[in-house]
Structure formats: structure tokens, C-alpha cells
């Protein structure tokens, strides 16, 4: 057959196959084939021999019982196969019952809450007013809303992924991705019409951005995302000439951003909030 090939450049069997051969993991047919190859290829045969020696040495090194004693030592023969100087037992700590752990956690929680309540009023004084409680920093979703506003509103050719002429598809799509029914409030009475929307990565899942535009080309965006924390506050976040009103309602965070005056944006935000089922009366 290919004798010249075999003698000059013997084709080494696959290392994986050789390795499986050493462990007796090959089916009978392949095993025979390897055996035949080994007879002709001293290099492969040497490798197999080295690996077998390695295996035996590893067993000796790690104190594995030798073949003869292995058959007897199956079963609860604790410590028998091991070194004689070793204690043949292991102390297993009884796992703490779950109610104890829960109780302990609750105690710590209560203690933490107590400390927070006691120190809360002091915090602004301690930090010189830079940190004034939970309401001081905008929730990260409001900042997250501000970025795509800044990125996409100047965009002329591709401001949105799905345009307003496919509004039904847009709403179905984003509702599906945010896993709750969305609706797009009409802002026609303020002179803004819908341009379209896009899907964005939010803080804890997908977020939707709807874009509106008036006849002079000014754009507003409404950013919607699911949010774990529920609070009813209605706040303003400023960055440069952009303003973002944001609020949380029914575990959804909303942010309305635009370059218009605060009063105007505020009245639009109130409109949007009530159109989306929120309760803007609470803020007025």
C-alpha cells in the first residue's frame, strides 16, 4: 500500500486516540488499529509507554491504592488507603438551619435600617450638603436617557430605527421587547409629531426611545425602561441646554428630554405622564 510513506515519514496516530488507547477507552476496532500502528511506529510506541509509566507514577504519587488492594477497599473503608499518620475522620459541621440564617439576616437588616434612620437626617450636614439623601442624584436611568437623546436627536438620516409611518409595528415590537404594553402619547397639541422609535440597551434590560419633532425641527425624546425601584417622585435633570424630566410609575422609568424651556417641558411631561397612566397630580 503506502509502504514508502510509512517508512520515511510515519504518520503519527492522533494524540487523542493514543491517549484514549492508554485509558482503554477505545472501541475494539480502533484499539486493534492503534496496536497495529504502534508495532510499526517506535515513536508512538515510546509515547504510549511514557504515558503508561506516567499514569502509574501519578497513582503512586497521589497514594491511589494499587490494583490488588483496590478491589477490597471499595466501601466504607475510611482512611484505609491513606497514610497511617492521618486522622481517619472529618468533622462535618451541622449546617445552620435556614430559619436561623434568615433570622440573623433580618436582625442585621433591622439594625442597618435603624442606623440609617438615625443618621439619615445628619447626612447632608456631614457631607456639607453634597449628598442630600436619595433624591439628590438622578437615578441612572435618567442619565442613561440623556445619552441617546444627545446621540440621536442631531441625527438627520437615521434618527430612529422604525419610523412613525409604521407606528403599529413600532409599538408592538417595543412592547414585546420591554415585556409590557406601551403606548405612544400624542403631542400634537404642543406641535410635536412622532418621528419613530428605537430599541436601546437599558440598565437592566431593553429600553425604548420615542422621538418627536416640531415643524422647526426641535426634537424631544421619551425614554422608557423597566426599573426595579418604585418611587413616585418627579424630577428634573439638567445637562448643558438639555433638560430631562423623569419619573417612575408602576415599575417603569420614564424620561422626557428636550432643549426647550423647563416650564414647557414640564407641562409636556405632565401630559405624557397622565397619558401613560401615571398620576401627575401628585407632583403639582
Amino acid at each position, binding site marked *: 500500500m503506502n509502504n514508502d510513506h510509512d517508512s520515511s515519514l510515519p504518520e503519527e496516530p492522533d494524540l487523542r486516540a493514543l491517549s*484514549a488507547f492508554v485509558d482503554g477507552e477505545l472501541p475494539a476496532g480502533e484499539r486493534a488499529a492503534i496496536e497495529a500502528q504502534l508495532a510499526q511506529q517506535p515513536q508512538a510506541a515510546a509515547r504510549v509507554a511514557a504515558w503508561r509509566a506516567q499514569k502509574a507514577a501519578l497513582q503512586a504519587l497521589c497514594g*491511589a491504592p494499587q490494583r490488588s488492594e483496590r478491589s477490597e477497599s471499595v466501601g466504607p473503608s475510611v482512611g484505609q488507603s491513606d497514610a497511617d499518620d492521618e486522622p481517619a475522620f472529618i468533622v462535618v459541621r451541622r449546617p445552620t438551619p435556614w430559619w436561623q440564617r434568615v433570622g440573623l439576616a433580618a436582625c442585621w437588616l433591622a439594625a442597618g435600617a435603624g442606623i440609617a434612620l438615625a443618621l439619615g437626617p445628619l447626612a447632608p450636614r456631614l457631607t456639607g450638603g453634597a449628598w442630600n439623601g436619595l433624591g439628590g442624584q438622578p437615578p441612572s436611568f435618567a442619565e442613561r436617557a440623556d445619552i441617546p437623546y444627545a446621540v440621536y436627536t442631531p441625527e438627520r438620516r437615521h434618527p430612529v430605527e422604525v419610523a412613525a409611518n409604521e407606528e403599529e409595528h413600532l409599538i408592538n415590537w417595543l412592547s414585546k421587547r420591554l415585556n409590557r404594553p406601551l403606548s405612544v402619547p400624542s403631542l400634537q397639541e404642543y406641535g410635536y409629531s412622532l418621528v419613530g422609535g428605537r430599541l436601546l440597551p437599558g440598565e437592566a434590560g431593553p429600553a425604548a426611545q420615542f422621538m418627536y419633532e416640531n415643524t422647526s425641527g426641535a426634537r424631544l425624546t421619551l425614554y422608557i425602561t423597566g426599573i426595579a425601584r418604585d418611587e413616585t417622585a418627579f424630577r428634573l435633570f439638567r445637562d448643558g441646554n438639555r433638560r430631562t424630566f423623569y419619573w417612575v410609575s408602576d415599575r417603569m422609568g420614564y424620561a422626557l428630554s428636550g432643549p426647550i424651556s423647563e416650564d414647557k417641558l414640564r407641562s409636556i411631561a405632565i401630559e405624557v405622564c397622565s397619558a401613560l397612566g401615571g398620576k401627575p397630580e401628585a407632583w403639582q
Partner: protein
Amino acid sequence: MSFEAEVISWLPQLRRYARALTGDRAWADDLVQDTAERALARWSAFRPNSNLRAWLLTILRHLYIDQLRGRREIAVDDESAPWRNLEAPHGEVDGLVLRDLQRALYCLPVEQREVLLLVCVEELSYQETSKALGVPIGTVMSRLSRAREHMRVLMTEGPLEGGAVGLARKVPPLKVVRNP
């Protein structure tokens, strides 16, 4: 046999594996203890007719990998290297060879070392190994053959670095230096 008794019956093997894996007796005993605790606490997660030993080895391995991450920053220098702390093994195989073998074993990356130990020392089948490591059999096979080859090369080059010659030109261990 009760579940508990069955777990206990595997403890010596678990300890052997843990010692070989870590090269550190105290660490190995901690690992076995944690493994036994976790196994007894989660006995309901064990499917009755599957392989208890592979299941225990899987738990031990997860614990080891977790703890390894925590210990990674500890520099291994020649003084504290595992092959120095383990006493010279005795038996029919030459002790010096075993010392080289030990040294080579701890030069392997963990992925290669664990597969080598599971198959060669614990004599798990490829199927069981694949289950214990959570990788396909093909991966077990290629890792294993690489590990063997790696060991073989380390062993043939071994004497250069091991023994008296190695001691004479030993590289000083890394030291942590703090900026003033």
C-alpha cells in the same frame, strides 16, 4: 446504605483527589470538609441513580475553582511551592522521579491537571470525567492528551531545573514591594 454513609465512604478518595489537585494538605482537608457539608446539605439535588462519586468530585472542583480565584494573588515561589511541602512519596517508584513528577504536575494549568488526575488517579471514565468537569468528551480527550504530552516534555526536561543544579541557580522568589 444511607446517603450519608455513602458520602462518607467516598471521603478518602475525595481527600486524595483534593491533595493531588491543590498540593496542600490543609487546603485539601478544608476542601473535603466543605464538599461533604455541601453534599449533605444538598442531598435532595442528587439524582438517586447517578454517579455519586462524580457528583462529589464536581462539588469539590467548584469549591476549588472558587477558592483558587481568591488565592490567585499569592505568589508561588520555590520555598512555598507545593512540591516542597509534600513529603517525598515512597513506594516502588523511585522517589526522585516522583518528585520531578510532582513538580511537573503543578506546572500544568489547572484544566490539564484536573483532567489528568480524574482519569489517571481517580480512574473515572471519560464519560464521568466529562460530567464532573462539565465539558464535552471531546474536550476531555484533547485536554488529557495535551496534559500527558505537557507532562512528558516537562519530565524529559525536568532534571535541568530540578535537583542540585536547580538549587544552585535558583531564581529568587518574587517579593511584594510597596511604594513608600
